[in-house]
């Protein structure tokens, strides 16, 4: 689904260039649950933005569903992003003047979809995140956990196949955080590809595949379908066995964590 090949990105920070991504190659299959961790400045957010088509690499190639994205113009990239990728942010990024409903329908509005279709889809995703009764509330009338769930609803309203979460629980207390993770993992079980960037070791450990980044390179890659743990993740390794049934077969640790979290919720 996602194939990065020798992606490089350098930022100019003051006088000295900062190499945010150095020859990063990565394969992600549909339905994977993947966490990217690493110290600040290790390039994990840059990688997330690269995958999310928000940023362009200086060099290297990126295929999204066999589409060579570096050849697309801004318009097409925006389109691809809107249709296929949902974003979730640490600070929610809901627009305060808009109600929950209006926030959620924004991606569909940008895509030019008719109001009727938007109503149905928004009602659908609101039910999915358990906020059907909050549709007409403005962000200042909602709690942190609810805000992030609205943001998730917005991220999935276009039925994307890839969900990118940047510190999704960073601004939440543990209980709301657990609610949010619950929703995200349910979505992953339903087949969506989920990538989270986090500092939170506990949250990172819940993913089936763990990527650790240091100095713009992939330092460790564990639990994925691609066997090579090194950053020298050669493109030849990508045509690995097609592991489509794999996502539903969640590893043990994830399963064992979930009940305890949901217990916290009910307390």
């Amino acid at each position, binding site marked *: 689904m996602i194939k990065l090949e020798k992606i490089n990105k350098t930022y100019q920070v003051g006088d000295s260039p900062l190499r945010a991504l150095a020859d990063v190659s990565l394969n992600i299959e549909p339905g994977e649950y993947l966490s990217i961790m690493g110290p600040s400045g290790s390039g994990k957010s840059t990688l997330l933005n690269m995958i999310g088509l928000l940023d362009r690499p200086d060099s290297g190639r990126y295929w999204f569903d066999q589409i060579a994205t570096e050849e697309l113009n801004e318009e097409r990239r*925006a389109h691809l992003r809107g249709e296929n990728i949902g974003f979730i942010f640490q600070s929610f990024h809901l*627009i305060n003047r808009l109600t929950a409903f209006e926030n959620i329908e924004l991606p569909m509005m940008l895509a030019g979809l008719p109001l009727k279709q938007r109503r149905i889809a928004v009602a659908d995703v609101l039910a999915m995140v358990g906020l059907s009764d909050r549709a007409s509330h403005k962000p200042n009338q909602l709690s942190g956990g609810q805000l992030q769930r609205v943001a998730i609803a917005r991220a999935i309203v*276009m039925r994307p196949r890839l969900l990118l979460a940047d510190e999704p629980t960073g601004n939440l207390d543990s209980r709301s955080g657990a609610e949010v993770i619950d929703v995200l993992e349910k979505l992953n079980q339903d087949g969506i590809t989920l990538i989270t960037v986090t500092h939170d070791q506990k949250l990172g450990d819940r993913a089936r595949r763990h990527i650790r980044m240091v100095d713009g390179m992939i330092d460790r890659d564990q639990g994925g379908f691609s066997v090579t743990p090194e950053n020298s993740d050669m493109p030849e390794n990508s045509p690995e066995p097609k592991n489509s049934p794999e996502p539903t077969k969640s590893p043990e640790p994830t399963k064992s964590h979930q009940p305890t979290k949901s217990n916290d919720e009910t307390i």
Partner: protein
Amino acid sequence: MKLFDQLVFNRQVFLRHRVRTLLMLLAVAIGVASVILLTSLGEGARGYVDREFSALGNRILIVLPGRKETTGGGPPMYGASPRDLTLEDANALGRIPGVLAVAPIVAGTTTISHSSRSREVITLGSTAAFFAVRQLQVGAGTLLSARAESEPLAVAVLGVKVKRELFGSSRALGQWVRVGDRRMRVVGVLEERGESLGLDMRDMLVIPVRTAEQLFDSPGLFRILLDIAPSADSDKIKEKILNVIRKRHDGEEDVTVISQDSMLAAFDNILATLTMAIAAISSISLLVAGILIMNISLISVSQRRQEIGLLKAIGASSRQIKQLFIGESLMLISMGSAVGISFAFALIALFAGLWPSFPLQPPVWAVPAALLVAFGTGLVFSIMPAKRAAALDPVLALRGML
């Protein structure tokens, strides 16, 4: 993104930032209103002059001795010609169909005195028709009689100012005055009336044309005024005048015919140019409004960085972001223009009620011009903020790092 959705989206932005929206609206409204009001002031002045002109002398043709090629502008005061224009010429012109009245004029300067006071005045020798053609009325006494056309009567009609300076507030009618070397009786005093066609009728003396000929010892006319019928074609009459003169002057076409239309046209030109200049000046206020919109939009862009970053992340292209911000400006300008136009027309209506004699009249192009300038500046000045918004790095914007 659908247009309707964008309108709804922008409306929500306006509702959220009421004060800011109101201020920008006001700036545009003031600009548009000032363009319309100031141009209607110019156009009103033009209409006023037009009406004054037509009130002044229905339709006048002026025949001057000597050939002049100049059209428009004020009539030349003196013409030099080898062949004089005579009273007989004037009478011949009077027989042209379509000419209602002929007023031959002999002009000169004389000294007029009464008891110890004396004064140099412009003296016009003419006939009763002169008063009709120039639409002059007497304030007291009578005008020149019909007999004054053919006989050198010793009578005079005084301008108001001349009367005042010679007689003060005492009665002038029936008094004798000395004009040059003759004694004449004052039969009338002209009504107070402003300057017209470059002659101050208050500071003037009118005597019978034959008397003036003798006084100045000259058979030549200074000019001939012709009052033509409103239905007549002034160009055709001009042609006929020249024919008559050519016949009488041995084939020489040695006169110049000036129509009031041509003078009016000159005034019209001047005032129209003035109105355009006023419009250009008032457009500056729209320019200022445009700059205000740009500044506030720039502030808005920096305040809404996170929103812009978000919109990009959820699928908005740079073009859509640009479209959103430019659309916002255009919506503001539409609303501001609507307010400004209504305000301007309300004020014009109010003015018309207060000063019916000087109605403000917006020229037909005022509203389109104001709108054009408003939308032009709005568009130009919103492109920069919109571009800045579109160029925003979504990653940094979302992290609040810009």
